[in-house]
Protein backbone atom coordinates (compact mmCIF):
# COMPACT_ATOMS: atom_id res chain seq x y z
CA UNK A 1 0.00 0.00 0.00
CA UNK A 2 3.01 2.32 0.12
CA UNK A 3 2.38 5.52 1.97
CA UNK A 4 -0.67 7.59 2.74
CA UNK A 5 -0.65 11.08 4.22
CA UNK A 6 -3.86 12.51 5.61
CA UNK A 7 -4.50 16.10 6.72
CA UNK A 8 -0.89 16.67 7.65
CA UNK A 9 -0.14 19.90 9.51
CA UNK A 10 3.05 21.43 10.77
CA UNK A 11 4.02 24.88 11.97
CA UNK A 12 7.25 26.42 13.15
CA UNK A 13 7.07 29.25 15.70
CA UNK A 14 3.36 29.82 15.02
CA UNK A 15 3.96 29.97 11.28
CA UNK A 16 2.05 27.28 9.42
CA UNK A 17 4.33 25.63 6.90
CA UNK A 18 2.29 22.53 6.04
CA UNK A 19 -1.42 23.25 6.07
CA UNK A 20 -3.65 20.22 5.69
CA UNK A 21 -1.95 18.14 3.03
CA UNK A 22 -3.17 14.73 1.90
CA UNK A 23 -1.77 12.39 -0.73
CA UNK A 24 -1.04 8.76 -1.42
CA UNK A 25 1.77 6.84 -3.12
CA UNK A 26 1.46 3.14 -3.89
CA UNK A 27 4.27 0.61 -3.86
CA UNK A 28 6.33 0.79 -7.01
CA UNK A 29 5.12 4.32 -7.77
CA UNK A 30 6.96 7.62 -7.81
CA UNK A 31 5.42 10.93 -6.75
CA UNK A 32 7.10 14.24 -7.47
CA UNK A 33 6.60 17.18 -5.14
CA UNK A 34 7.22 20.59 -6.68
CA UNK A 35 6.85 24.10 -5.37
CA UNK A 36 8.66 27.26 -4.47
CA UNK A 37 11.71 27.42 -2.34
CA UNK A 38 10.31 27.59 1.16
CA UNK A 39 6.98 26.00 0.31
CA UNK A 40 7.67 23.16 2.73
CA UNK A 41 8.77 20.31 0.45
CA UNK A 42 11.73 19.26 2.57
CA UNK A 43 9.53 19.59 5.63
CA UNK A 44 7.09 17.03 4.19
CA UNK A 45 9.94 14.57 3.65
CA UNK A 46 11.28 15.18 7.15
CA UNK A 47 7.84 14.57 8.62
CA UNK A 48 7.52 11.28 6.75
CA UNK A 49 11.01 10.13 7.71
CA UNK A 50 10.40 11.02 11.35
CA UNK A 51 13.07 13.71 11.57
CA UNK A 52 10.33 16.17 12.52
CA UNK A 53 7.24 15.62 14.67
CA UNK A 54 3.94 16.39 12.97
CA UNK A 55 1.47 18.70 14.69
CA UNK A 56 -1.57 16.79 13.50
CA UNK A 57 -2.76 14.48 10.75
CA UNK A 58 -1.80 10.94 9.86
CA UNK A 59 1.10 9.32 8.08
CA UNK A 60 0.30 5.71 7.33
CA UNK A 61 2.96 3.44 5.91
CA UNK A 62 3.03 -0.25 5.18
CA UNK A 63 5.82 -0.67 7.70
CA UNK A 64 9.45 -1.32 6.91
CA UNK A 65 12.21 1.22 6.71
CA UNK A 66 12.00 4.72 5.33
CA UNK A 67 15.09 5.80 3.43
CA UNK A 68 16.02 9.36 2.67
CA UNK A 69 18.43 10.83 0.15
CA UNK A 70 19.53 14.29 1.22
CA UNK A 71 19.79 17.38 -0.89
CA UNK A 72 23.58 17.60 -0.49
CA UNK A 73 24.13 13.85 -0.16
CA UNK A 74 25.09 14.16 3.53
CA UNK A 75 27.68 11.40 3.28
CA UNK A 76 29.75 10.89 6.42
CA UNK A 77 32.95 12.59 5.40
CA UNK A 78 35.13 10.87 7.98
CA UNK A 79 34.13 7.41 6.71
CA UNK A 80 35.03 5.77 3.42
CA UNK A 81 32.43 4.64 0.90
CA UNK A 82 32.30 1.13 2.32
CA UNK A 83 31.58 2.33 5.86
CA UNK A 84 29.14 4.93 4.57
CA UNK A 85 27.05 2.37 2.72
CA UNK A 86 27.21 -0.30 5.41
CA UNK A 87 26.67 2.25 8.20
CA UNK A 88 23.19 1.08 9.16
CA UNK A 89 24.25 -2.58 9.03
CA UNK A 90 27.22 -1.89 11.29
CA UNK A 91 25.68 0.52 13.77
CA UNK A 92 21.95 -0.10 14.01
CA UNK A 93 20.95 -1.88 17.17
CA UNK A 94 18.88 -4.57 15.50
CA UNK A 95 21.25 -5.13 12.56
CA UNK A 96 24.75 -4.98 13.99
CA UNK A 97 26.43 -8.34 14.53
CA UNK A 98 23.99 -9.81 12.04
CA UNK A 99 26.43 -9.78 9.14
CA UNK A 100 30.01 -10.95 8.88
CA UNK A 101 32.60 -8.75 7.24
CA UNK A 102 32.42 -10.94 4.11
CA UNK A 103 28.66 -10.55 3.87
CA UNK A 104 28.94 -6.79 4.34
CA UNK A 105 31.46 -6.61 1.53
CA UNK A 106 29.11 -8.53 -0.71
CA UNK A 107 26.13 -6.31 0.12
CA UNK A 108 28.10 -3.12 -0.41
CA UNK A 109 29.47 -4.37 -3.73
CA UNK A 110 25.92 -5.22 -4.82
CA UNK A 111 24.58 -1.80 -3.93
CA UNK A 112 27.49 -0.02 -5.58
CA UNK A 113 26.92 -2.07 -8.71
CA UNK A 114 23.29 -0.97 -8.66
CA UNK A 115 24.31 2.69 -8.82
CA UNK A 116 27.05 2.01 -11.35
CA UNK A 117 30.03 2.68 -9.10
CA UNK A 118 31.70 -0.67 -8.54
CA UNK A 119 35.10 -0.76 -6.87
CA UNK A 120 35.20 2.57 -5.04
CA UNK A 121 34.79 1.12 -1.53
CA UNK A 122 38.05 2.54 -0.22
CA UNK A 123 37.53 6.09 -1.48
CA UNK A 124 36.44 8.95 0.79
CA UNK A 125 33.49 11.21 -0.09
CA UNK A 126 35.77 14.19 -0.68
CA UNK A 127 37.46 12.23 -3.49
CA UNK A 128 34.19 11.83 -5.41
CA UNK A 129 32.35 14.22 -7.71
CA UNK A 130 28.95 15.60 -6.67
CA UNK A 131 27.10 13.19 -8.93
CA UNK A 132 29.04 10.21 -7.59
CA UNK A 133 28.39 11.32 -4.01
CA UNK A 134 24.69 11.42 -4.82
CA UNK A 135 24.79 7.89 -6.13
CA UNK A 136 26.74 6.66 -3.10
CA UNK A 137 24.07 8.25 -0.93
CA UNK A 138 21.46 6.30 -2.95
CA UNK A 139 23.35 3.12 -2.21
CA UNK A 140 23.54 4.02 1.49
CA UNK A 141 19.82 4.73 1.61
CA UNK A 142 18.73 1.41 0.07
CA UNK A 143 21.06 -0.81 2.06
CA UNK A 144 18.33 -1.81 4.52
CA UNK A 145 15.87 -2.67 1.74
CA UNK A 146 13.47 0.20 2.53
CA UNK A 147 9.82 0.18 1.55
CA UNK A 148 9.74 3.95 1.11
CA UNK A 149 12.46 6.10 -0.48
CA UNK A 150 12.45 9.89 -0.19
CA UNK A 151 14.66 12.02 -2.45
CA UNK A 152 15.27 15.67 -1.63
CA UNK A 153 16.22 17.48 -4.85
CA UNK A 154 18.33 14.59 -6.16
CA UNK A 155 19.37 16.43 -9.33
CA UNK A 156 20.02 19.87 -7.87
CA UNK A 157 23.40 21.25 -8.82
CA UNK A 158 24.18 18.58 -11.43
CA UNK A 159 24.73 18.99 -15.15
CA UNK A 160 21.89 17.81 -17.43
CA UNK A 161 23.59 14.53 -18.33
CA UNK A 162 24.39 13.60 -14.72
CA UNK A 163 20.81 14.58 -13.87
CA UNK A 164 19.47 12.17 -16.46
CA UNK A 165 21.73 9.44 -15.07
CA UNK A 166 20.44 10.10 -11.55
CA UNK A 167 16.84 10.07 -12.80
CA UNK A 168 17.42 6.69 -14.41
CA UNK A 169 18.85 5.34 -11.17
CA UNK A 170 15.78 6.55 -9.28
CA UNK A 171 13.60 4.53 -11.63
CA UNK A 172 15.98 1.59 -11.43
CA UNK A 173 15.94 1.56 -7.61
CA UNK A 174 12.17 1.68 -7.69
CA UNK A 175 12.03 -1.31 -10.02
CA UNK A 176 14.59 -3.16 -7.94
CA UNK A 177 12.98 -2.54 -4.54
CA UNK A 178 9.34 -1.96 -5.49
CA UNK A 179 9.38 0.85 -2.94
CA UNK A 180 7.05 3.84 -2.91
CA UNK A 181 9.19 6.87 -3.78
CA UNK A 182 8.77 10.60 -3.32
CA UNK A 183 11.01 12.96 -5.28
CA UNK A 184 11.24 16.63 -4.40
CA UNK A 185 12.43 18.51 -7.45
CA UNK A 186 12.34 21.77 -9.36
CA UNK A 187 13.10 20.22 -12.71
CA UNK A 188 10.48 19.43 -15.31
CA UNK A 189 12.88 16.87 -16.82
CA UNK A 190 13.07 14.93 -13.55
CA UNK A 191 9.30 14.89 -13.25
CA UNK A 192 8.87 13.63 -16.80
CA UNK A 193 11.53 10.95 -16.57
CA UNK A 194 10.66 9.52 -13.19
CA UNK A 195 7.22 10.29 -11.90
CA UNK A 196 3.80 8.75 -12.10
CA UNK A 197 2.15 11.71 -10.41
CA UNK A 198 2.92 15.25 -9.33
CA UNK A 199 1.94 17.29 -6.30
CA UNK A 200 2.40 21.05 -6.30
CA UNK A 201 2.62 22.91 -3.00
CA UNK A 202 2.14 26.58 -2.39
CA UNK A 203 1.85 28.26 0.98
CA UNK A 204 1.57 24.89 2.66
CA UNK A 205 -1.38 23.76 0.55
CA UNK A 206 -1.72 21.43 -2.42
CA UNK A 207 -2.52 23.56 -5.48
CA UNK A 208 -2.20 20.82 -8.09
CA UNK A 209 -2.33 17.06 -8.12
CA UNK A 210 -2.15 14.93 -11.25
CA UNK A 211 0.07 13.22 -13.77
CA UNK A 212 3.06 14.95 -15.40
CA UNK A 213 1.07 15.26 -18.64
CA UNK A 214 -1.80 16.93 -16.84
CA UNK A 215 0.68 19.33 -15.26
CA UNK A 216 1.71 20.50 -18.71
CA UNK A 217 -1.74 20.53 -20.23
CA UNK A 218 -3.92 21.71 -17.40
CA UNK A 219 -4.76 25.32 -17.65
CA UNK A 220 -4.86 26.56 -14.08
CA UNK A 221 -2.94 29.65 -13.09
CA UNK A 222 -0.61 27.66 -10.85
CA UNK A 223 0.41 25.01 -13.37
CA UNK A 224 0.82 27.56 -16.17
CA UNK A 225 3.06 29.65 -13.97
CA UNK A 226 5.20 26.65 -13.00
CA UNK A 227 5.52 25.17 -16.47
CA UNK A 228 6.28 28.52 -18.10
CA UNK A 229 8.35 29.72 -15.15
CA UNK A 230 6.82 33.20 -15.15
CA UNK A 231 7.02 35.71 -12.33
CA UNK A 232 3.46 36.92 -12.85
CA UNK A 233 0.89 34.56 -11.44
CA UNK A 234 -0.80 33.47 -8.26
CA UNK A 235 2.47 32.27 -6.65
CA UNK A 236 4.49 35.15 -5.25
CA UNK A 237 8.07 35.03 -4.12
CA UNK A 238 8.71 36.98 -0.96
Amino acid at each position, binding site marked *: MGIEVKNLKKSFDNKTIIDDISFKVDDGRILSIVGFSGSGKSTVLKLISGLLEKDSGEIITSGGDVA*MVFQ*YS*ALFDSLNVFDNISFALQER*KDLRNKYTRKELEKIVAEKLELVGLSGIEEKFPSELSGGMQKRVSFARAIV*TEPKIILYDEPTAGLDPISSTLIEDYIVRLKNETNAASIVVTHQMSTIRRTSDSVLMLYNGKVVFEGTPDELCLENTDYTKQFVNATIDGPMKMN
Partner: protein
Amino acid sequence: MKIYYQNTYTYKFLKLIAHQVKDFLSTLGDIIIYGLEFLKGLKHFNTTPKDIIEQCSRFAVSSLPITLTIVCMTSIIISMQVAEEMVKHGGGNFIGMLMAILTVREEGAIMSGFAIISMIGSSLASEIATMKVTEQIDAISVLKVNPVHYLFTPRIIAGTIMMPFVVILASTLGIIGGAIAANITSELPYKAYFDSVWFGLSLKDLYVCILKSISFGFAITLISCCCGLIAKDGAKGVGIATTKAVVWSFVSIVIIDLIFATAFFY
Protein backbone atom coordinates in the same frame (compact mmCIF):
# COMPACT_ATOMS: atom_id res chain seq x y z
CA MET B 1 1.91 61.25 19.25
CA LYS B 2 2.12 57.52 19.53
CA ILE B 3 5.06 55.88 21.27
CA TYR B 4 6.21 52.60 19.83
CA TYR B 5 7.56 50.86 22.90
CA GLN B 6 9.33 48.32 20.69
CA ASN B 7 11.68 51.04 19.57
CA THR B 8 12.80 52.11 23.03
CA TYR B 9 16.23 51.11 24.24
CA THR B 10 14.81 49.74 27.47
CA TYR B 11 12.62 47.35 25.51
CA LYS B 12 15.48 46.28 23.26
CA PHE B 13 17.75 45.81 26.25
CA LEU B 14 15.20 43.69 28.12
CA LYS B 15 14.51 41.68 25.01
CA LEU B 16 18.20 40.97 24.60
CA ILE B 17 18.45 39.82 28.20
CA ALA B 18 15.36 37.63 27.83
CA HIS B 19 16.87 36.11 24.71
CA GLN B 20 20.15 35.37 26.50
CA VAL B 21 18.38 33.81 29.47
CA LYS B 22 16.27 31.65 27.18
CA ASP B 23 19.35 30.55 25.27
CA PHE B 24 21.17 29.76 28.51
CA LEU B 25 18.32 27.67 29.87
CA SER B 26 17.77 25.79 26.64
CA THR B 27 21.47 24.97 26.33
CA LEU B 28 21.55 23.78 29.93
CA GLY B 29 18.46 21.67 29.29
CA ASP B 30 19.99 20.16 26.17
CA ILE B 31 23.21 19.29 27.98
CA ILE B 32 21.27 17.52 30.73
CA ILE B 33 19.02 15.67 28.28
CA TYR B 34 21.89 14.53 26.05
CA GLY B 35 23.97 13.64 29.10
CA LEU B 36 21.21 11.32 30.31
CA GLU B 37 20.80 9.95 26.78
CA PHE B 38 24.52 9.22 26.70
CA LEU B 39 24.32 7.34 30.01
CA LYS B 40 21.35 5.37 28.70
CA GLY B 41 23.36 4.47 25.62
CA LEU B 42 26.09 2.86 27.72
CA LYS B 43 23.69 -0.02 28.35
CA HIS B 44 23.85 -1.25 24.77
CA PHE B 45 27.40 -0.31 24.24
CA ASN B 46 28.57 -0.72 20.66
CA THR B 47 31.73 1.33 20.51
CA THR B 48 34.72 -0.67 19.39
CA PRO B 49 38.10 -0.27 21.10
CA LYS B 50 39.33 1.08 17.76
CA ASP B 51 36.91 4.02 17.92
CA ILE B 52 37.93 4.85 21.48
CA ILE B 53 41.64 4.58 20.72
CA GLU B 54 41.15 6.83 17.71
CA GLN B 55 39.57 9.46 19.94
CA CYS B 56 42.21 8.96 22.65
CA SER B 57 44.93 9.62 20.13
CA ARG B 58 43.39 13.03 19.64
CA PHE B 59 44.37 13.80 23.21
CA ALA B 60 47.75 12.14 23.11
CA VAL B 61 49.00 13.25 19.73
CA SER B 62 47.42 16.54 18.91
CA SER B 63 47.17 18.25 22.25
CA LEU B 64 49.61 16.74 24.71
CA PRO B 65 52.72 18.76 23.76
CA ILE B 66 50.86 22.04 24.05
CA THR B 67 49.08 21.08 27.26
CA LEU B 68 52.36 20.05 28.86
CA THR B 69 54.05 23.24 27.71
CA ILE B 70 51.30 25.43 29.13
CA VAL B 71 51.24 23.74 32.54
CA CYS B 72 55.01 23.57 32.76
CA MET B 73 55.47 27.20 31.77
CA THR B 74 52.89 28.34 34.30
CA SER B 75 54.69 26.47 37.07
CA ILE B 76 58.03 27.88 35.99
CA ILE B 77 56.64 31.41 36.05
CA ILE B 78 55.05 31.00 39.48
CA SER B 79 58.19 29.41 40.86
CA MET B 80 60.33 32.24 39.47
CA GLN B 81 58.08 34.80 41.11
CA VAL B 82 57.91 33.25 44.57
CA ALA B 83 61.26 31.46 44.92
CA GLU B 84 63.40 34.52 45.30
CA GLU B 85 61.16 36.12 47.93
CA MET B 86 60.80 32.91 49.87
CA VAL B 87 64.53 32.24 49.94
CA LYS B 88 65.15 35.83 51.01
CA HIS B 89 62.79 35.40 53.96
CA GLY B 90 64.09 32.00 54.96
CA GLY B 91 61.31 29.96 53.43
CA GLY B 92 63.43 28.29 50.78
CA ASN B 93 62.74 24.87 52.18
CA PHE B 94 59.03 25.25 51.56
CA ILE B 95 59.13 26.17 47.90
CA GLY B 96 58.81 22.56 46.80
CA MET B 97 55.84 22.07 49.08
CA LEU B 98 54.16 25.20 47.83
CA MET B 99 54.66 24.30 44.21
CA ALA B 100 53.47 20.72 44.76
CA ILE B 101 50.26 21.79 46.48
CA LEU B 102 49.62 24.47 43.93
CA THR B 103 50.26 22.27 40.93
CA VAL B 104 48.60 19.06 42.03
CA ARG B 105 45.59 20.61 43.69
CA GLU B 106 44.82 23.39 41.27
CA GLU B 107 47.04 24.57 38.52
CA GLY B 108 47.81 21.27 36.80
CA ALA B 109 44.19 20.30 36.40
CA ILE B 110 42.74 23.69 35.60
CA MET B 111 45.44 24.75 33.12
CA SER B 112 45.28 21.34 31.41
CA GLY B 113 41.53 21.75 31.32
CA PHE B 114 41.82 25.13 29.61
CA ALA B 115 44.33 23.74 27.11
CA ILE B 116 42.18 20.69 26.36
CA ILE B 117 39.08 22.85 25.93
CA SER B 118 40.77 25.12 23.45
CA MET B 119 42.13 22.22 21.42
CA ILE B 120 39.90 19.18 21.88
CA GLY B 121 36.63 20.79 23.01
CA SER B 122 36.55 23.26 20.17
CA SER B 123 37.43 20.65 17.57
CA LEU B 124 34.77 18.22 18.87
CA ALA B 125 32.15 20.94 18.79
CA SER B 126 33.00 22.15 15.30
CA GLU B 127 33.25 18.59 13.97
CA ILE B 128 29.80 17.63 15.25
CA ALA B 129 28.30 21.01 14.38
CA THR B 130 29.52 20.64 10.81
CA MET B 131 27.91 17.22 10.65
CA LYS B 132 24.71 18.79 11.95
CA VAL B 133 24.51 21.63 9.45
CA THR B 134 25.43 19.36 6.51
CA GLU B 135 22.57 17.02 7.51
CA GLN B 136 24.92 14.16 8.38
CA ILE B 137 23.27 13.91 11.81
CA ASP B 138 19.86 13.70 10.12
CA ALA B 139 21.28 10.98 7.89
CA ILE B 140 22.37 9.03 10.99
CA SER B 141 18.88 9.38 12.49
CA VAL B 142 17.13 8.30 9.30
CA LEU B 143 19.30 5.18 9.25
CA LYS B 144 17.82 4.53 12.72
CA VAL B 145 21.09 4.94 14.58
CA ASN B 146 21.01 7.15 17.66
CA PRO B 147 23.43 10.01 16.95
CA VAL B 148 24.04 10.64 20.64
CA HIS B 149 25.08 7.04 21.24
CA TYR B 150 27.09 6.83 18.05
CA LEU B 151 28.96 10.13 18.31
CA PHE B 152 29.15 10.87 22.02
CA THR B 153 30.14 7.48 23.42
CA PRO B 154 33.68 7.11 22.01
CA ARG B 155 34.45 10.79 22.51
CA ILE B 156 33.26 11.09 26.10
CA ILE B 157 34.84 7.79 27.12
CA ALA B 158 38.13 8.85 25.55
CA GLY B 159 37.98 12.20 27.34
CA THR B 160 37.19 10.62 30.68
CA ILE B 161 40.03 8.11 30.36
CA MET B 162 42.68 10.44 28.97
CA MET B 163 42.18 13.54 31.10
CA PRO B 164 43.70 12.05 34.32
CA PHE B 165 46.79 10.92 32.41
CA VAL B 166 47.21 14.32 30.84
CA VAL B 167 46.78 16.08 34.18
CA ILE B 168 49.16 13.80 36.10
CA LEU B 169 51.82 14.06 33.42
CA ALA B 170 51.39 17.82 33.22
CA SER B 171 51.51 18.24 37.00
CA THR B 172 54.66 16.16 37.29
CA LEU B 173 56.35 18.23 34.63
CA GLY B 174 55.05 21.35 36.34
CA ILE B 175 56.69 20.39 39.63
CA ILE B 176 59.95 19.58 37.87
CA GLY B 177 59.78 22.87 35.96
CA GLY B 178 59.27 24.67 39.25
CA ALA B 179 62.44 23.05 40.63
CA ILE B 180 64.49 24.15 37.67
CA ALA B 181 63.17 27.70 37.86
CA ALA B 182 63.82 27.92 41.60
CA ASN B 183 67.29 26.54 41.11
CA ILE B 184 68.18 29.01 38.41
CA THR B 185 66.64 32.15 39.88
CA SER B 186 67.54 31.68 43.54
CA GLU B 187 70.02 28.84 43.56
CA LEU B 188 67.77 26.58 45.59
CA PRO B 189 69.32 23.08 45.63
CA TYR B 190 67.21 20.43 43.94
CA LYS B 191 67.38 18.26 47.05
CA ALA B 192 65.84 20.95 49.23
CA TYR B 193 63.07 21.43 46.71
CA PHE B 194 62.16 17.78 46.21
CA ASP B 195 62.44 16.92 49.92
CA SER B 196 59.76 19.45 50.70
CA VAL B 197 57.51 18.31 47.84
CA TRP B 198 56.52 15.32 49.96
CA PHE B 199 55.51 17.50 52.95
CA GLY B 200 52.82 19.04 50.90
CA LEU B 201 51.42 16.04 49.11
CA SER B 202 49.31 13.29 50.50
CA LEU B 203 47.60 10.36 48.85
CA LYS B 204 44.34 12.24 49.15
CA ASP B 205 45.70 14.98 46.93
CA LEU B 206 46.40 12.43 44.27
CA TYR B 207 42.96 10.82 44.52
CA VAL B 208 41.19 14.12 44.38
CA CYS B 209 43.34 15.22 41.46
CA ILE B 210 42.43 12.08 39.51
CA LEU B 211 38.76 12.33 40.39
CA LYS B 212 38.70 15.97 39.43
CA SER B 213 40.38 15.40 36.09
CA ILE B 214 37.94 12.61 35.30
CA SER B 215 35.10 15.06 35.96
CA PHE B 216 36.82 17.67 33.80
CA GLY B 217 37.27 15.22 30.95
CA PHE B 218 33.64 14.16 31.15
CA ALA B 219 32.31 17.70 31.38
CA ILE B 220 34.46 19.08 28.56
CA THR B 221 33.66 16.31 26.09
CA LEU B 222 29.96 16.14 26.97
CA ILE B 223 29.47 19.90 26.72
CA SER B 224 31.46 20.18 23.50
CA CYS B 225 29.57 17.32 21.84
CA CYS B 226 26.21 18.80 22.96
CA CYS B 227 27.02 22.28 21.72
CA GLY B 228 27.95 20.74 18.37
CA LEU B 229 24.75 18.74 18.17
CA ILE B 230 22.47 21.71 18.85
CA ALA B 231 24.10 23.84 16.14
CA LYS B 232 21.95 25.28 13.39
CA ASP B 233 22.05 27.69 10.44
CA GLY B 234 25.08 26.84 8.37
CA ALA B 235 28.66 28.00 8.73
CA LYS B 236 27.75 30.74 11.18
CA GLY B 237 26.08 28.13 13.37
CA VAL B 238 29.28 26.10 13.49
CA GLY B 239 31.13 29.16 14.75
CA ILE B 240 28.51 29.88 17.37
CA ALA B 241 28.51 26.25 18.50
CA THR B 242 32.29 26.23 18.88
CA THR B 243 32.33 29.43 20.90
CA LYS B 244 29.52 28.15 23.06
CA ALA B 245 31.35 24.89 23.68
CA VAL B 246 34.50 26.71 24.78
CA VAL B 247 32.70 29.17 27.04
CA TRP B 248 30.46 26.57 28.66
CA SER B 249 33.37 24.19 29.21
CA PHE B 250 35.48 26.94 30.79
CA VAL B 251 32.71 27.88 33.17
CA SER B 252 31.87 24.27 33.95
CA ILE B 253 35.38 23.25 34.95
CA VAL B 254 35.77 26.32 37.14
CA ILE B 255 32.54 25.41 38.89
CA ILE B 256 33.60 21.77 39.24
CA ASP B 257 36.92 22.95 40.61
CA LEU B 258 35.16 25.09 43.19
CA ILE B 259 32.97 22.17 44.22
CA PHE B 260 35.99 19.91 44.66
CA ALA B 261 37.92 22.55 46.60
CA THR B 262 34.96 23.05 48.93
CA ALA B 263 34.18 19.39 49.37
CA PHE B 264 37.68 18.05 49.96
CA PHE B 265 39.89 20.79 51.29
CA TYR B 266 37.80 23.35 53.01
